[in-house]
C-alpha cells in the first residue's frame, strides 16, 4: 500500500480539526467555517464521526469505515 499515517479513534476529532472540519450536534462531520455544511463521502452520504475512517487525496476524499467502503479503498490503493 502507499504511504499511510495511522490514527487511533482517540485522535479522530484532532485529525478532523487538522483539515478544518468539526462535528455537529448530531455527530456528522461538518466544515469548521460553515457548520451547516455537512461533508460528503464518495457515495454522496453524510459521514458520522463513528464511521469516519480516514482521508485521502482528491477533493479531500473522506473514507468511511464500513466493509464496502474499505473493500473499495483496498482496490484503489493496491
Amino acid at each position, binding site marked *: 500500500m*502507499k504511504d499511510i*499515517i495511522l490514527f487511533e479513534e482517540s485522535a479522530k476529532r484532532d485529525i478532523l480539526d487538522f483539515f478544518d472540519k468539526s462535528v455537529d450536534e448530531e455527530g456528522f462531520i461538518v466544515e469548521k467555517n460553515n457548520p451547516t455544511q455537512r461533508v460528503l463521502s464518495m457515495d454522496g452520504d453524510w459521514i458520522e464521526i463513528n464511521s469516519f475512517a480516514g482521508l*485521502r487525496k482528491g477533493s479531500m476524499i473522506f473514507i468511511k469505515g464500513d466493509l464496502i467502503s474499505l473493500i473499495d479503498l483496498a482496490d484503489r490503493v493496491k
Partner: protein
Amino acid sequence: MGFFDKLKSLFNVNKVEIRLFEVHINSNNVSKKIECNEGNKTLNINLQELESGERKKVKQIINSAVKDEDCLLLEDKSKKIIDDFKLKDKKSENQEILNYLKDKIPPDDHKALRASLYLREKFREGGDVSHLKRDIMEKYGERGKNISNLCTAGYFENWIIPLYGEMSKEPDFTLDEFLKVYNIVIKEAAFSVFVHREMSGGEVKKAILGKIETSEKYNIKFTNIHGIGKSNVKKIRNVIMELETERDFKKRIEEKNSTIMVRLNLT
C-alpha cells in the same frame, strides 16, 4: 522533504531509516508525547501532549502529507480490516468462485458476493459478523442480504455455479436464460428449497413441507423448489406427485433438460 523527515526533524528522532517506521497518531492522557518503538517500527505521536507550536507544525505536516504527498490517513482498525480482507479475498477457494461468476452475474451482485465471502470467512472464525451483514445490506439492500445468506450456506459453489455449468451445456443456452433462474434464486431464496444429490426423496419432501410451513406462517403464498441434474429432477417430480395427494396447491414447472424449477402456489 517528505513527512517522515519533517517529523524526524520536528521531534529530533534520530533513528536510522525512520522512513521504515509507521506513524501512529493518538490523543490521550496516557501515552508519551513521542514514542519510537524499534521493535515493531512505529513512531507514536500523542497529540494531546504536544505544545501548541508543535501541534501547529504537525497539522501542517499531516495536511501536506495527504494533499501534496498522496499519503493515506487511515484509522488503525480500518487498516486491520483491509489487511485481513486482502488475505482472505486472496484465498484460492474464494478467488475461484469470484472468477467463475465475474461476467456472469450483475456487477453489484458480484461485489456483494465478494463482501459476503469475507463475511463467511469471519463467521467460520467464530467472529461476530452482524456489523458486516449490516454493511452489506446497507449498500446492496435485500438482495445483498439474500446473497450473503446464500453465500454463507455454500449455495454459490454448491448450487449456483453447477446451475450455470449444467445450463450452459445446452446448445441454445444464453446468459439471459441463466439470469432468469438466478434472479429468482436470489430474490426468493428464503422461500426456496434447493435439492441436492445427497437428499433422499423423504428428505426432499420434509424440506418442502418445512418451507411451505414457513411460507404460510408469514403469509407468503408460494414456495420454490430448485433442482439440477436428472436424478434430482426425477426426485422432485416424484415428491410433487406425492404432495399433490396430501396438500392443496397449484404447481408451475419449468424444466429444461437437467434443471427444474417448481413454483407451488399455496392456497
